[in-house]
């Protein structure tokens, strides 16, 4: 049992500027820790061995949910429980509230943060067990082999690596057109959710644009999709704790029963949350009914390239799209 983590310097800044400078000093050996629910597992397994861990939990300005002129800003260190139960999020952005409530277990949601949930690393167990796969800087993929156990892996956009996005809140945030605020030594930048997540064709070793020294400080959600008709569903092997086999998040603007506008995003089928543009184009302007849903579902998984053990994800994805569209 590898129960004691290797030693590291623990730094506990109380403001973002100090945290940024500490991470800049530490460089490649630094690790920004949010809730620690994933970080500590990496350390315990001795696969990630930073020498300096910067604990962001003491920075008060990174927590909390504020209404802004054109939407809402959520501090990256806000716990998933607080996101789930916040009155503004519940009332206007219920999609995110529902998604946050489906993450992991109550204990993890009480400690785990929204920023950490969307920035967590791939769950591929070959990668997690410390093998020298592409994502770990090696030159092979253990999952995409005839014997590889790839039931949980991707249907789309494989590029050497076949890992999928494990986050439930990420699909909700892409659907809501959120943007991420990142700070580092050279200042602040704002990145659209669609650009925040990166696939293996762009950067095979990272799931997000975050680089060593970067801190995700806030998530901004515009009012554009507030109070839309939302649908979120997550299918997992276990109803609690587990990561999604496939999840779906949609926001629909209805005019009577006509779908005026829609955004729909599917998780755990690609390395990034997969925005289903084809489905959106098909149903926009149509009645919200069983026929429209069936038509959309038929197109949802077009182009899927299943691996040996994950063919089941295709009908699963189609059915989730169907349920999201017909409501």
């Amino acid at each position: 049992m590898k129960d004691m983590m290797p030693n590291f310097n623990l730094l506990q800044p109380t403001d973002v500027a100090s945290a940024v400078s500490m991470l800049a000093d530490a460089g490649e050996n630094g690790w920004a820790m949010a809730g620690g629910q994933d970080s500590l597992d990496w350390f315990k397994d001795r696969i990630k061995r930073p020498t300096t861990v910067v604990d962001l939990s003491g920075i008060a300005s990174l927590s909390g949910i504020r209404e802004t002129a054109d939407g809402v800003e959520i501090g990256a260190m806000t716990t998933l429980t607080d996101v789930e139960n916040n009155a503004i999020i519940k009332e206007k952005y219920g999609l995110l509230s529902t998604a946050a409530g489906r993450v992991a277990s109550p204990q993890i949601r009480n400690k785990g943060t929204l920023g950490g949930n969307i920035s967590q690393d791939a769950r591929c167990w070959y990668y997690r067990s410390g093998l020298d796969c592409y994502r770990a800087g090696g030159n092979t993929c253990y999952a995409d082999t005839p014997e590889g156990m790839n039931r949980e892996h991707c249907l789309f956009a494989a590029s050497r690596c076949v890992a999928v996005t494990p986050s439930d809140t990420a699909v909700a945030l892409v659907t809501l057109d959120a943007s991420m605020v990142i700070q580092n030594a050279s200042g602040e930048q704002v990145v659209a959710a669609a650009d925040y997540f990166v696939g293996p064709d762009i950067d095979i070793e990272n799931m997000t644009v975050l680089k060593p020294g970067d801190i995700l400080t806030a998530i901004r959600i515009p009012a554009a999709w507030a109070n839309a008709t939302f649908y979120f569903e997550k299918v997992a092997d276990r109803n609690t704790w587990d990561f999604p086999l496939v999840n779906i998040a949609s926001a629909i603007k209805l005019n009577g029963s006509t779908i005026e506008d829609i955004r729909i995003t599917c998780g755990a089928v690609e390395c990034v949350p997969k925005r289903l543009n084809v489905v959106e184009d098909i149903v926009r302007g149509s009645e919200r009914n069983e026929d429209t849903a069936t038509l959309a579902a038929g197109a949802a998984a077009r182009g899927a390239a299943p691996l040996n053990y994950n063919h089941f994800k295709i009908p699963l994805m189609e059915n989730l799209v169907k349920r999201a569209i017909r409501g």
Partner: protein
Amino acid sequence: MQKKFSSDRYDPLSTERDALSRRNFIKGVIAAGTVAGAAGLVTGCSDGSDSSGGSAASSVERLITINVNGNSRPVDVLPNETLAQTLRNKLGLTGTKIGCDRGSCGACTVMIDGVTQNSCSILTHTVRGASVVTVEGVGGANGELHPVQQAMIEELAPQCGYCTPGQVVSGVSLLQRNPNPTRDEVRNALAGNLCRCGAYNNYINAIVKAAESA
């Protein structure tokens, strides 16, 4: 002093059962009244002030005080030490169990400022200034059982009992924020506590019963 510190270091291979040395150590720390100075010797921190990251170069101070079950407990904590390790190995609070040590099973559940968290997945240094309640702290001061514990006995909830401390803490936390939960709310509140004996229904029955009796 140096020697006392090294003897208190957590050694995963040690089978030492002698709690006396730890107790003496802790007493020594309290009595000495030179905590800050001693910490300077051990950690190399020269300022001896609060360790909340004023200096970018130095790690946290190891000698800290955490509030556990209403008591201030001075303790020597490594930067890479989890709360479950501190509670069990340094503070003698072995009611908190370590099951998976990965935040999956909930056997190590404790309350931090009233909300349940997995103590195996928290660094002890992050709960300085917070109030920690373990299964030892949910009952009365004179050992009276909490209604949840009493109901678990009556409903024969524990089978092997390993997950029980976590189930108790999750149940107590639920009743603190929601004294009249529905059965579904109880199920959700216990969703992070695995039970390999499969006694889930008995645990849920017990918490529903405790809510009714309170």
